[in-house]
């Protein structure tokens, strides 16, 4: 059973066991526009909830991707480094950014679920 949670910075994290898969939302990729560059954290790096984890750049602008949770990066998605446009095409699936082993699963408790995030995005318009 996996659960998906969202941050106010438009990252998503899908958690299975103690491993979370992190990406950016469809709203985020749409706001960014055509993604041309992705920089991912090194495997083994410890990321901190709310801290810098990755960089995504569109034609227009550079944007930080923050870690939704604290933990160790255990895998990265080289496919989006090789083909950044994937982030626009399938942000919620194939274009995940990295996997993190959660140090503190209770960090997920305060985060939005799918319905909560949808309402949050509506409020941004």
């Amino acid at each position, binding site marked *: 059973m996996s659960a998906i949670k969202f941050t106010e910075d438009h990252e998503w994290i899908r958690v299975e066991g103690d491993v979370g898969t992190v990406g950016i939302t469809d709203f985020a990729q749409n706001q960014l*526009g*055509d993604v*041309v*560059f992705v*920089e991912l954290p090194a495997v083994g790096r410890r990321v901190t909830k709310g801290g810098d984890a990755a*960089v995504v*750049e*569109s*034609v*227009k*602008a*550079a944007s930080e991707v923050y870690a939704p949770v604290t933990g160790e990066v255990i895998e990265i998605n080289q496919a989006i480094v090789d083909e*950044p446009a994937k982030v626009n095409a399938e942000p919620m699936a194939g274009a995940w950014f990295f996997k993190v082993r959660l140090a503190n699963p209770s960090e997920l408790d305060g985060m939005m679920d799918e319905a909560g995030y949808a309402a949050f995005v509506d409020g941004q318009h």
Partner: protein
Amino acid sequence: MTESALKETPLHALHVALGARMVEFAGYAMPVQYPTGILTEHLHTRAAAGLFDVSHMGQIRLTGENVAGALETLVPGDIKGLGVGRQRYTLFTNDEAGILDDLMVTNAGDHLFVVVNAGCKHEDLAHLQARLDGRVTIEAQFDRALLALQGPAAAEVLLRLAPGIAGQGFMTGRAVEVDGVPCFVTRSGYTGEDGFEIAIPADAATQVAQRLLGEPEVKPIGLGARDSLRLEAGLCLYGHDIDTTTTPIEAGLNWVIGKRRRAEGGYPGAAVVADQLANGTRRRRVGILPEGRQPAREGTPLTDAAGNPVGTITSGGFGPSFGGPVAMGYVETAHSKDGTALQAVVRGQPRPATVAAMPFVPHRYFRP
């Protein structure tokens, strides 16, 4: 600034109807992109034709006896030598040879037609009034619309609506009818492609824009692609690559200073320019190619191979037609030769970059 305080161009409703994402630019609500996105818009302009709303720019008519001579007291360009129908790129300079704005001047026969940047137009107008009033009649036409049609198919498309442009050369202007509307059309632009700028009464702008968009080659293009197109073409963006702290010579715009003007001077900052032409400058605007895929954007520090600061990027991004990151900026003259290895410090990380000739994508202007 709140959205309600923003000015709108005559094409505002059309942008909204086309699904544009509107952003603030120079006090106007302007389309940064349409639903297809910047990358597609950029590539479409280089492949066929793109229609840009640049109505936020300032159109000014100058009339009077010896109007060319009067304007020459404010710009280093050869305006007196500009034949009827000819257009020229030039600069307003200050007494230190800093650049107040860059502009296009066309000799329209009975007047000079001037187009200035949106962000500077009120200052430019005040500058003209302060310096030329009494000698020249200055007529701001800030309510008129300006459309740019750019790309290799632009001429073929415009000819269908405006037979009067037949045979019109690059950097020339003509009063012609476009779709029956009296316009002033120049063959020029800001993309490195062949193209036209169409100055048009506000109340007819939407009609003509819709007619152009109805042609199969034409798509609407926003400010996002306008910026990436001009960057690939190596063209300066005022307020970024040139401003009051940069001189025409530092900016590598030596070619804008006419031969006669070099000898005669007679414009603000002429002594500084003469000195810099004779003795060189401490720094120089150059093209920069970052290695790899990561863009190096405005404000990125540049260092030499050993890590000593040598300059700063003033415009940088991803060049969709170039297929990689491109940038321009100022470096110390000792490091300004093409091929010089530098480092661009992106988010604290030094990354290899090379000084490179501009344009990054060859200009394809129409030269009959």
